[in-house]
């Protein structure tokens, strides 16, 4: 697809961001208390995720764990220890990295699938659109979590779980990334599609078509920039959902003990019976982290929504 040379004045028009632009939107979001709090919480967790080794040393194993078994918080082990004598703090910080990275990758996969299908089916229309939206509706209705469990198990059994790593993440965990992408793209696709439908009818798209721009060019240069705001706002909420799904999948036993995530820690806590033994320190830290991160994404998402939505409304 060769993009035709655009005559002067037929530059791609970005309608979604007015004079303020993306920088203005960010300033507006951070100017709201919910946006700011959400942002700050995420900054802290990102810092933890970037360099866990520097903060708490390498991930402790059954051999390097030196504390008492299921010891309550003490001066040496501020968050207590697990059943192997490992420091919960050490596990927690390393789990932060795993959970955040999986959440991030899963969000990218989900949003890319959703945005591409949404833009193409909205722009192209016809049978492709009808089929894609049918499939999207199907995924919106069925209990995708049970499907995710089955898919993860099957993919792992077929591929085998070696110790291969990609991006420093074990293959077994990348399965979860792919499965989250497959099962949760549909709401993104629906939102992007409806926005594409309304953009398609606008004058600047007509103009581009008249000058001879190809469909691919129009979708990339005219539609995509205009749905970018929506994609970002949606990605924030998708991130929260991805963290929750990863946590839940790990909790039902699909995590990787060699690369524990928050969900994997909670699964370990449950399987040694920590709640019944009153060993609250085993699961409260990981649980708190999950709630804080999801809460932060929800706050940030609603702030973004409030900043971007008035514009969406006025355009209707």
């Amino acid at each position, binding site marked *: 697809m060769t993009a035709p040379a655009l005559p002067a004045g037929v530059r791609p028009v970005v309608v979604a961001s007015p004079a303020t632009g993306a920088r203005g939107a960010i300033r507006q979001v951070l100017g709201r208390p919910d946006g700011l709090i959400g942002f700050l919480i995420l900054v802290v967790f990102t810092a933890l995720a970037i360099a866990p080794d520097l903060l708490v040393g390498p991930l402790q194993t059954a051999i390097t764990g030196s504390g008492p078994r299921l010891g309550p918080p003490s001066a040496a082990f501020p968050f207590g220890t697990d059943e192997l004598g490992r420091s919960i703090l050490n596990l927690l910080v390393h789990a932060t990295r795993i959970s955040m990275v999986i959440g991030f990758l899963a969000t990218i996969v989900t949003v890319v699938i959703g945005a591409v299908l949404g833009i193409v089916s909205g722009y192209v229309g016809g049978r492709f659109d009808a089929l894609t939206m049918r499939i999207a*509706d*199907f995924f*919106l*209705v*069925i*209990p*995708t*979590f*049970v*499907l995710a*469990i*089955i*898919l993860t*198990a*099957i993919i792992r*059994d*077929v591929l085998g779980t070696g110790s291969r790593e990609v991006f420093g993440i074990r293959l077994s965990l990348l399965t979860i990334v792919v499965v989250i992408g497959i099962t949760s793209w549909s709401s993104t696709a629906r939102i992007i599609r409806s926005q594409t439908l309304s953009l398609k009818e606008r004058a600047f798209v007509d103009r581009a078509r008249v000058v001879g721009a190809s469909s691919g060019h129009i979708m990339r240069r005219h539609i995509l920039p205009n749905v970018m705001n929506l994609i970002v706002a949606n990605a924030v909420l998708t991130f*929260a959902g991805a963290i*929750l799904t990863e*946590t*839940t999948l790990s*909790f*039902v*036993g*699909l995590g990787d003990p060699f690369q524990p995530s928050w969900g994997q820690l*909670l699964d370990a*806590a*449950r399987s040694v019976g*920590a*709640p*019944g*033994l*009153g060993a*609250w320190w085993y*699961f*409260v830290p990981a*649980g708190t982290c*999950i*709630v804080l991160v*999801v*809460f932060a994404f*929800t*706050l940030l998402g609603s702030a973004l929504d409030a900043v971007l939505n008035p514009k969406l409304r006025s355009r209707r």
Partner: protein
Amino acid sequence: MNGRYVVRKIGQAILTIFAIVLLNFLLFRMMPGSPERVLLRNPFLTQEKIAQVRKEWGLDKPLIPDQLVGYVKATAVGDLGYSLKFRGQSVVDVVASRFWPTVILIGLAEIIAIAVGLSAGAYAGWRRGSTGDRVASGTSLILYSMPYFVIGMPLIVIFAATLGWFPTSGMLTPGANSGSFVGQLGDFARHLVLPLTTVSLGLIGGYSIIMRSSIIETRSEDYITTARAKGLRDDRILRRHAFPNAMLPMVTIIAINLGYVVAGAITVEVVFNWPGLGTLTVDALSSRDYPVLQGVFLLLSVAVVFANLVADLIYGVLDPRVRT
């Protein structure tokens, strides 16, 4: 209600269920325990024997349409194959024995959460910006951010391990079934309290948030202004005019949400060792009992699709605008 609307909705539901069966069929072919793979792994089998077994099981026929038709037929008459873990038991029997505990848990939790969540959301939305709204919305947002099992584990520590008010796990005290029916019911209820509280709390957050925004949207409608102009009392406007109209979108949302509730309930059952479909799913997962996993998936999917159909039909009755 318009007949065409009903027929269309039922048609869509049937199509969705067919798609689920098709997906289940494809998953069966993908999964590692499929008959061919198991056969090929055994080194002592001769080629003739393999061919004979394949013929017996119909595996020599083309995947589509022959095998698919056979699969659809078997599924239609309720033959979902046999469990790998519980040897000799059919998938239907295994799943059926775990059905009621889950239905009771989710059903009661939905009732509690709808009652509490909708009232809290309606109150918060009606008194938008008040202290009550801030507290209710903040609590809802935090509850909404919590996976169900994160709510459940502290409850065990506080109310079971420390205070000892309720048992930590299970549905009935083992070996204590000598008592009367009433005694057994009491035992069951004591076991039910914590898991039920957990699922309800998990649901309340979401329902309250959505109900709040629904009420806020309703507040600016003309009929509310009219009601105010008539001089009706504030709480009467909320109860008789705003609430019923704000309920409309909730019908659909509650049905759609059921798919997520199922996921949450699975984890809660695991936390409390509640012998329902959730613990069955996790047990089947850890022993890679694919036939049971797919049976659970089929049952839950059909249940959710059915709930959505019912919601659509109710919506059609409640809101005359959609009867087209």
